[in-house]
């Protein structure tokens, strides 16, 4: 490890927290409907949206109405995005003349973007018109992230309200999150990225005559506007196939720093938002601390493994880092390992390095981060509501140990909440394990593999983890554009998204109706280092118990084989 690598890691973390603190406070104001400095411009726009859509912004919803509105909006989104891809050939902004996609690919992409997964079985520059990219994919980058924030804020209301039935208004939460949080940040973010060389135009692809006398066709497009929200909304669907490794998406080390900041700034900020909304900032800090412990640990493993590198390559007789396959020189090992961790602890899934070519343990970290439920800061909104699931499990386990009724923020955690919280953990885990088990025993699953040996299992495990966890990154050697993977992964994405959201909204509804028990000497404090440590421990133990056997057969055994010099 060089001093400069340390410097880059430390600098990133410090800037991240410095940006997330004020953003967290700002988001709390926006989500509670307070006035902020953006209201002069965006206030009237927000009101106009409500008027056009016939939304009564003062009307509150109970959890069932909230859930029905959310599902209606998202399913409609899937249907319209599917149709858009099937008729893109008839629509404007299509200088390359791309025609309709195959139905299973269009379905996969529609579910993928509406669920904030952004798994890409397609290759952007060779299938998607500019219109589909803008009016389809970019829109869902915004609203799927806003859906996540809405669910998180509904849960916070459940914790803070006393003996009421309602948890907010879905339309209002969605609109405010989009217009006042995601949109202004994206505009600033996109322009910063363009300054570094990210392209933003509507020109047809440009063919040039190269130095050596050949020709090269440069893909063009409105990239920066999608790039900014792709990171800020932890979506991760690249404009191009190579995603954030493509020089037109991520040209410089500074653009890379910006993108890494964009991915985590809202999820980290939301832990602080939570503190402000429950009027006890310590409650926010403790969630931040638990996530930070796990984040630093995972970054450490990922970085060390990539620096230690690939002995099978070192054997050839090389200088420099041995694990450079699938990495870009301008980012180097440290920024590749850091990006890989950031993109998978969140539900982002953008990549600046090809995860399939990471060292086995370096590749284990992204899979594990997704398997843990992306609660280490996690996706926009999705991370916070996943952390709440583990908070509930933690106070329950602690309650069992000390023999008291578990409580969180003065609310009793009872049988119903436990059933729902456990469902929210089990549903995606089941999708991951059953899905990859199925894929590994049928030819339709194994014929798509690009690598033999244990790495092949890792590819399938990664695919189902990524889909169920709504991440979207991949061990991309797997040929995922087949009927089997397109359909199976669509199902995993849908269940992994709404199979978590619905139980959690039910918890929000049930919590909102409860009384607040006054704090007494026997109340277990959910602030402070002890609770942060317990929370981090519960996350790791549940993840390890569920997934260790599968991981042992994939990346762990591959690492051991690599050390003894075996190739497949």
């Amino acid at each position, binding site marked *: 490890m060089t001093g400069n690598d340390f410097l880059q890691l430390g600098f990133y973390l410090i800037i991240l927290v410095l940006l997330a603190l004020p953003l967290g406070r700002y988001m709390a104001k926006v989500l509670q409907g307070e006035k902020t400095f953006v209201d002069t411009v965006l206030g009237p726009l927000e009101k106009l949206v409500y008027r056009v859509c016939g939304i009564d912004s003062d009307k509150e919803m109970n959890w069932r109405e909230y859930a029905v509105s959310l599902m209606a909006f998202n399913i409609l989104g899937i249907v319209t995005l599917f149709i858009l891809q099937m008729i893109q050939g008839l629509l404007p902004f299509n200088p390359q003349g791309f025609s309709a996609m195959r139905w299973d690919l269009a379905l996969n992409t529609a579910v993928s973007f509406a669920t904030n997964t952004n798994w890409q079985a397609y290759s952007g520059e060779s299938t998607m018109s500019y219109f589909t990219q*803008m009016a389809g994919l970019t829109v869902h980058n915004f609203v799927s992230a806003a859906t996540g924030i809405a669910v998180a804020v509904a849960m916070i209301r459940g914790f803070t309200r006393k003996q009421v039935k309602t948890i907010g208004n879905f339309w209002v939460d969605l609109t405010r999150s989009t217009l006042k949080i995601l949109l202004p940040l994206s505009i600033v973010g996109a322009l910063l990225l363009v300054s570094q060389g990210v392209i933003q135009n509507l020109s047809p692809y440009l063919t040039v005559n190269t130095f050596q006398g050949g020709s090269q066709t440069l893909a063009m497009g409105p990239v920066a506007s999608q790039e900014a929200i792709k990171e800020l909304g932890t979506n991760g669907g690249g404009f191009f196939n190579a995603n954030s490794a493509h020089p037109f998406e991520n040209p410089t080390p500074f653009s890379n720093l910006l993108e890494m900041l964009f991915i985590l700034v809202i999820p980290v900020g939301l832990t602080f938002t939570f503190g402000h909304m429950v009027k006890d900032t310590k409650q926010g800090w403790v969630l931040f601390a638990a996530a930070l412990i796990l984040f630093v640990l995972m970054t450490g493993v990922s970085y060390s493994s990539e620096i230690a590198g690939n002995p099978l390559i070192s054997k050839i007789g090389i200088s420099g880092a041995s694990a450079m396959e*699938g990495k870009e020189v301008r980012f180097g090992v440290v920024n590749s390992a850091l990006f890989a961790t950031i993109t998978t602890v969140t539900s982002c899934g953008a990549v600046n390095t090809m995860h399939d070519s990471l060292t086995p343990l370096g590749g284990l970290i992204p899979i594990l981060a997704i398997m843990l439920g992306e609660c280490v800061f996690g996706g926009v909104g999705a991370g916070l509501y996943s952390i709440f699931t583990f908070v509930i499990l933690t106070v329950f386990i602690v309650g069992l140990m000390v023999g008291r009724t578990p409580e969180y923020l003065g609310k009793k955690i009872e049988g119903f909440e436990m059933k729902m919280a456990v469902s929210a953990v089990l549903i995606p885990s089941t999708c991951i394990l059953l899905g990859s088990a199925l894929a590994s025993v049928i030819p339709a699953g194994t014929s798509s593999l690009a690598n033999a040996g244990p790495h092949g299992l890792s590819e399938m495990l990664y695919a189902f983890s990524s889909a169920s966890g709504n991440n979207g990154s991949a061990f991309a050697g797997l040929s995922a554009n087949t009927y089997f993977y397109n359909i199976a992964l669509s199902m995993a994405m849908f269940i992994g998204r709404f199979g978590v959201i619905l139980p959690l909204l039910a918890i929000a509804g049930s919590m909102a109706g409860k009384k607040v028990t006054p704090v007494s000497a026997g109340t277990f404090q959910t602030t402070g280092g002890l609770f942060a440590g317990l929370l981090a421990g519960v996350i790791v133990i549940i993840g390890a118990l569920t997934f260790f056997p599968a991981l042992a057969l994939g990346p762990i055994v591959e690492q051991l084989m690599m050390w003894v010099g075996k190739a497949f």
Partner: protein
Amino acid sequence: MIKMKILRRAFMLLLVMTIITGIAYPLAVTGLAQVIFPHQANGSLIVQNGQAVGSELIGQNFSDPRYFHGRPSTAGKDGYDAASSGGSNSGPTNRSFLDTAAQRADEVRKENGLSPDAPVPSDLITASASGLEPYITPAAAQIQVTRVAKARNMSVQKVQVLLDQCTKGRQFGFLGEPRVNVLQLNLALDTQ
């Protein structure tokens, strides 16, 4: 009936959001970018005699000994296809990838007149993630200096000076890694 009302609201909100975030937002950013950063927004093109010959951010295929060579590329059929980006996705224990890497190392050694056990900079035997990376490490450029000078009948010192000029340090002194833009270096050689 209540359900119809929800569906209508969902549809209207989706439509309004499509107009705001899917049309107004990208077009507004396009407009601003084209005014403030027109060079970057249009692909950082390198123009020679009024004709674009490439982008300073996108690598090109170089096999001629007179040029510095970039990294192996898996973009498209022949590499450096800027309408078909992507990496090899070869895993670390993939035998065919390891064989290819060893073969590339031998080629690099032969091309540059190195001894058969000389260490080869790793970026010259591994494919980048995008397949379009325009950069190599300074070490990877250094071992090509003598070959390029010989092929061009130039003095080694002269090529070295150009290489030093085209070597970029870390951004702001600490971000990323030191690197050489192969395209710009070759352009500098050609315009000598």
